[in-house]
């Protein structure tokens, strides 16, 4: 059973502005699906809405995870149901060390009430292992979340959290932006690792660069809050050649 977005209409709470306008979309288990589109097309709004950001209001339609609607659920409930959002610009959270955030999130999943307790020492080994694979300096694990992190370090930190928490579906909002070629390859490998664990991946990207390393089975193109085209990998190649101007 997949992650499904059905006829979804979303507006910004209080403003009334519709940012997602009747979107249908599906991500199966172990599948990589790309969501492409120009800046301001509503891709990030869709990602936030799926994760339950209070600023976005679902006007109509549904979001379904493995057959169950999650629209009424809080962000933490969605997270515990197996959804993960890798943020495009993750915020700085002063006071919370990255390692503590990961341990606390992990403990929530295994039902450990003492959030900062390392009840399973293997988790530390795992964190270190994936930090090393992602090229994330170990000292960053003991710094406050994203505080003083470079753009690339933030992207790696988001992927690290996804790899440890092992979600059923990940939504990765431009995980490649601001990275050099080596960085893009590292992120692409991590996405492939998630896919190989049967995680469904919704890969939101503006550029096609990362799609040279991860091959999505399907590609959606979103413009002005609507899905304007869908297809296979060849659609990404077409956008690479022609850009988004044909849709505008």
């Amino acid at each position, binding site marked *: 059973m997949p992650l499904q977005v059905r006829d979804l209409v979303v507006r910004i709470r209080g403003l009334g502005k519709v940012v997602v306008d009747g979107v249908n979309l599906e991500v199966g288990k172990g599948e990589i699906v790309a969501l492409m589109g120009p800046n301001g097309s509503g891709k990030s709004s869709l990602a936030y809405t799926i994760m339950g950001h209070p600023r976005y209001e679902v006007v109509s339609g549904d979001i379904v995870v493995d057959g169950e609607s999650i629209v009424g659920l809080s962000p*933490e409930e969605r*997270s515990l149901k197996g959804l993960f959002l890798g*943020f495009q610009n993750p*915020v700085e959270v002063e*006071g919370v060390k990255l390692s503590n955030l990961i341990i606390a999130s992990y403990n929530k999943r295994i039902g450990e009430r003492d*959030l900062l307790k390392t009840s399973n020492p293997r988790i530390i080994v795992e964190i270190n292992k994936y930090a090393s694979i992602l090229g994330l300096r170990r000292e960053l694990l003991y710094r406050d979340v994203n505080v003083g992190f470079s753009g690339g370090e933030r992207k790696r930190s988001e992927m690290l959290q996804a790899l440890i928490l092992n979600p059923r579906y990940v939504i990765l909002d431009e995980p490649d932006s601001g990275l050099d070629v080596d960085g893009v390859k590292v992120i692409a490998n991590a996405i492939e690792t998630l896919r190989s664990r049967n995680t469904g991946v919704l890969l939101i990207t503006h550029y096609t660069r990362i799609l040279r390393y991860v091959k999505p089975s399907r590609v959606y193109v979103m413009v002005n809050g609507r899905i304007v085209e869908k297809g296979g990998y060849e659609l990404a190649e077409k956008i690479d050649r022609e850009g988004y101007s044909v849709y505008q």
Partner: protein
Amino acid sequence: MAGGGLEELAKIKSFDELLGIASTYPREIVLRGRIERGLIEEISRVKKEPDWMRRLRLRALELFEKLPTPKWVIGLDEIDLEEIAYYVKPLADRVESWDDLPQWIKDYYKKLGLPEIEARFLSGINTVFDSETVLHRVKEELRSKGVVMIPLEEALRKYPEFVKEYFGRVFPMSDHKFAALHYALWSGGVFVYVPPSVRVEQPIEAFFFVGSELEGQFEHTLIVMGEGSSLHFIEGCSAPMFKKYSFHDGMVELYVHRGAELKFTTVQNWSRNIVNFNNKRAIIEENGYVEWLEASIGSKLTYTYPTSILKGRGARTRNINVAISNGPFIKDTGGKAIHLAPNTHSILVSKSISSNRGLTVYRGLVRITRGAIGSTSHVQCDSLILDNTGKAYTYPRNEVEEPEAEVTHEATTGRLGEDQLFYLQSRGLSEGEAKSLIVLGFIRDVLQGLPLEYVSVLSKVIELEFSEYGGVG
């Protein structure tokens, strides 16, 4: 020990659940009514104290009547001083063993994990229930090192000249109206004397408990540190839930002789019905050191400004103030350092957290008198506001009369934004869990140096404060 203890504490969902609603218990003496000579005389009589103490109380009463209510006191107007019982002696003899306590006191203490903490980490403990000490335990370490730790009333009988020399010397009764009130009504508390060069390894704890509403608690702690001695003293306080308020007007006097070091830690977790007034002051002689850690978590209203008077050359102090107002409560807290001698140094750190219409006020004072050359003071005030309704005010005040001294000041205000909260929630944490993680991180630095067990209890208290079940209340 069956039931209670730290393990139990780790499992509870809220502090209100832990202590519950106040139950009734036998009380031997209850004195209430107008605060006047007759009441003071009666307290002095039931305490069978020396005449000089009776006269001191009466002097304090006169001052209380004369002095105006301090301008900085907000929110005290709802207290009707004539409604309160000023002296309450529960029907419990002072004992030295947990097992000899009446069951209803033992139950409270067990729920708070006190016997276990005492057994594992302390060299001595004194617990005051309402107005009197009900348990006093001194371990071998204190005995073998010649440390005196006894209830203050007993010290009055055993060491009258010594107590007379220090009592009221550090915190004058004329300081303000509620200091005078304290001296008129004081009861309960502990006297500690650490002989010169004696270093006490394990902390001593004093624990204060108010068992019923419309009650006043006026305990007095007096600690004298001999030259070159060292000690860590910990204060804890708690109360069950009441329908009406109770009033706490305690006092701490610390006299630190040359080269002595004293850490004084308070973990204040009164229930939401306590109006908490604290009077804490230290005099520090040459090269002496005092470290205050004042963690104000509970209560309805708290006023506390631990003060260090740096009297001798090279005296130092560190004053750490942590205040949490989660809910419609006020923490009016801060610290003061008075530099009277050359090369004296102070560091004042305040960390305040407010949310759910809570208000934190920092009031600080650094005074460097003329001649205190080479002295330095650094003040740091950090406020964290967790939502749109919490408020934090900061009133630091510097009075520097000595040009060859340096005072620096830093202040930061952080607000937990919607996006930060969403980020943490998107990782599976509830709003309360996210807030408690942030708060624990915010005060992480200042908790260093506390025994681990206290850090873990404090962490638990903070976690409960922001959990869905606890706090606000």
